[in-house]
């Protein structure tokens, strides 16, 4: 578990993998897993103009 960098809520579960993006359950900010041991997150990269399928 670690704190959401936006709202300080405690986030993280055992099923997350490195690089995974998930929304903070409290504030909804998209977070990216930076490390799993210890569990660390940062705000996910912002969508760029050339992003898509």
């Amino acid at each position, binding site marked *: 578990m670690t704190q959401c960098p936006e709202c300080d809520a405690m986030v993280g579960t055992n099923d997350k*993998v*490195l*690089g*995974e*993006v998930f929304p903070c359950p409290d504030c909804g900010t998209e977070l*990216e*897993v930076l490390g799993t041991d210890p569990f660390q997150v940062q705000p*996910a*990269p912002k*969508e*760029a*103009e*050339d*992003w*898509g*399928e």
Partner: protein
Amino acid sequence: MSDGFRLGVFYTIIRPEEKWILGAAESRGLAVVRLDDAEVTFGLDRPDADADVVVNRSVSHTRSLYATRCYAHYGIPTVNHPEVVELAGDKILTSLRLAERGVPTPKTVVALSPEAALKAIDRVGYPAVLKPAIGSWGRLMAKVGSREEAEQIVEHKSALSSPIHSVFYVQEFVPKPERDLRVFVVGDRVVAGMYRRSSDWRTNAARGGSTEPLPISPELAELSLRAASAVGGGVLAVDLMEAPSGLVVHEVNPTPEFKALTAATGADVAGAIVDYAVEVGRR
């Protein structure tokens, strides 16, 4: 299948799709090489991480273009092939290719300046749809109902700094039912398909449209495979609309999402992608 085969996954972020691909590779005993598109570097002589095949899952068209070219330079095959990434990642190039191959597609006119854009929209007729040539998820698309709206939208687009917004891709508005069709092609087969429903004229699942399984008729399979083959084939999501004249292909996506498709159909899309990538890597 293992025998030390290394499957690279080039990615921007790990969404459920990438997680499933990593899981499918691991369950097949493959060695997985994770390639973060914000971290890897590409020398002229050798890659900084080796692989037998690389599955491109980067959401950035620019990064996908250069990375797949670099892997081709090293002799490492990619899914998709760099030429497919280049073609299918650009709506203008895709439309040209679909037309060349006789795949039915909406009426499309391209313009390279704001002045020409107004002419292009007039030529397509109203309502028309303006789309960025690159990018997706329904972002920055506009439905243009009149000449007055066209002038306003073209002026706004012209004020955006990126040169890509000075390229105008204008398409006829197809009066379809409140749904479109997505068919997922891997190699020479259709893996699954879904309807995407929305009361919004943009039916992209990323915009919150609902989905349901799409029965694949022989006609639909044939047209989807023909569209995929037209851009070079590989792992592609073919988007179609039910126009009054029949089915038309409006997009072929080279790095498709499949979370909604998996939920709607239960198809093992990730497994199909990994099996196909291994096949490409062993050729």
